């Protein structure tokens, strides 16, 4: 065999040759560490979670019985637990709808009218709250919604106490103060997840071709008609993409209802409390399977609606 023109002298250049001849080897070497990490730590954990949800918990000994059974899921279907699931779903739905309504003007203005400097202001103005500390944001609302806090002060300064009191007197959602009512929990959820709704919405509105809007007005549609029949349907995938976040995040949160709201339980709180003091990991795991299932259904529907292209 004749020597190569450029002899591969060092290990590095020899390896380079090997990688060139066998690209799959390089791919395997690149992927092995992350696959090991995600596969073992993350997928392994999810599998452990699923397995544990089929175990049961002995109330007398306080121990997990590692035998396959469906009794844990039967317990999950008890009226008390079903009402927790229903409450969480209703909250997630309400938060998603409200965030969409509050987010739309911001996203619409940022996408259609903001230019140059203002574009950057809107972009950072949404991005910074999105990334800034979750706990700090929740804490801010503890200050705001407290009975002695700024909302009560502002209401009495503007003589709108009656409005605040009427809202608090509402059945079911009201309470002694905003910080101890469903209304308060709802406001904080909307605040914390709002940026997640604005961004995909803005991206979707930006993608609506201007030519279609011009065509619509050339054909005699009023601005209102153009909005309802052209802009909104075309921006809908963005709205659905945003709703994936607001819905999923509300389903799994347990800090916000714990700090602001009634003491009524949500799925996240149930998971946390069951695994913590009670040590009932099987029921906690079964509870955690619920948001996974709901999100799988939600994601499938969202994919059909074309929301993934808007992400």
């Amino acid at each position, binding site marked *: 065999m004749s020597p190569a023109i450029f002899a591969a002298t060092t290990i590095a250049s020899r390896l*380079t040759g090997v990688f060139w001849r066998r690209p799959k080897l390089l791919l395997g070497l690149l992927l092995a560490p992350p696959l090991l990490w995600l596969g073992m*730590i993350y997928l392994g954990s999810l599998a452990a979670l699923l397995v544990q949800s089929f175990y049961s918990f002995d109330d007398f000994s306080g121990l997990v019985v590692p035998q396959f059974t469906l009794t844990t899921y039967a317990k999950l279907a008890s009226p008390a637990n079903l009402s927790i699931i229903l409450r969480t779903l209703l909250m997630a739905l309400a938060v998603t709808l409200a965030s969409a309504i509050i987010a739309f003007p911001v996203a619409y203005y940022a996408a259609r009218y903001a230019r140059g400097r203002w574009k950057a202001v809107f972009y950072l103005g949404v991005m910074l709250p999105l990334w800034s500390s979750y706990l700090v944001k929740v804490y801010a609302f503890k200050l705001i919604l407290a009975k002695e806090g700024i909302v009560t002060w502002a209401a009495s300064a503007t003589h709108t106490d009656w409005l605040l009191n009427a809202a608090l007197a509402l059945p079911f959602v009201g309470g002694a103060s905003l910080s101890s009512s469903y209304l308060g929990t709802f406001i904080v959820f909307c605040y914390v997840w709002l940026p997640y709704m604005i961004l995909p919405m803005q991206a979707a509105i930006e993608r609506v071709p201007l030519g279609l809007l011009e065509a619509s007005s050339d054909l005699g549609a009023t601005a209102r008609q153009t909005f309802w029949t052209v802009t909104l349907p075309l921006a809908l995938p963005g709205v659905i993409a945003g709703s994936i976040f607001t819905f999923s995040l509300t389903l799994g949160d347990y800090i916000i209802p714990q700090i602001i709201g009634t003491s009524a339980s949500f799925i996240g709180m149930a998971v946390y409390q069951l695994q913590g003091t009670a040590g009932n990991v099987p029921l906690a795991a079964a509870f955690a399977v619920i948001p996974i299932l709901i999100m799988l259904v939600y994601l499938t529907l969202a994919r059909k609606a074309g929301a993934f292209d808007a992400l």
Partner: protein
Amino acid sequence: MPFNASRGLKVAAAAGLAFLHLPIVLIFLYAFTTEERSFAFPPPGLTTQWFAVAWARSDIWPPLILSLQVALFSTLIALILGTLISAAMAGAKFWGRESLSLLVVLPIALPGVVTGIALRSAIPILHLDFSWITIVLGHATFCIVIVYNNAVARLRRLSGAILEASADLGANAFQTFRYVLLPNLGTALLAGGMLAFALSFDEVIVTTFTAGTGAASKTLPIWMLDELIRPRQRPVTNVVAIVVFATTFLPILAAYYLTRDTAQAAVAQK
């Protein structure tokens, strides 16, 4: 299409932005109040003493240092793993590519409580003790996607031709990585790393599941959560909140400026 926004739209957009920012301003204001037992508004008086009080409180320093340590290690692991995945994904198409991109996103796509309870139920099976290392396990897992998103966006814009040019000029794979790929990826990785750091430094939901019960695994967000549930000197919590806010705010701002040309790809994907 009208070229000027209607007044109603302007007001609603401005109100939306204000709604996002005013609460943070109040956090700053309440750090200076003289009232330590309630959230009375307007504050009865203003003082700067709480900054000195917070500085002297011995229960704040260990959580702060732990949080920095956890964020640092998680970011390092996420940087390595995230870069490796993005390099593989930027190259050839291969079987399971779509599943892999789903797997990377899953830790932040599923609610934090799911990731948390999953790790919580797996850690005892692996016979690991809950400690700061188990916190890092969880944080690194959901930080990978942040680095990955930034790196893969940059790699997509990078022409494959410069890698071929490098090989034609006689560079071996490692030299190409060191002198061609890395300098091009540099700012994207820096931005991704800073965002991952901010995310880890601030994370509380997964942390409450993966941290032990002892004081040795109490991160700053867990300290804050305790103060929210059982408040002591409330303005001190505000001072800490400002520190947490600044520690996450500055890296985010830096990441934005580093990747401004591809900004949509960088900070837009939490």
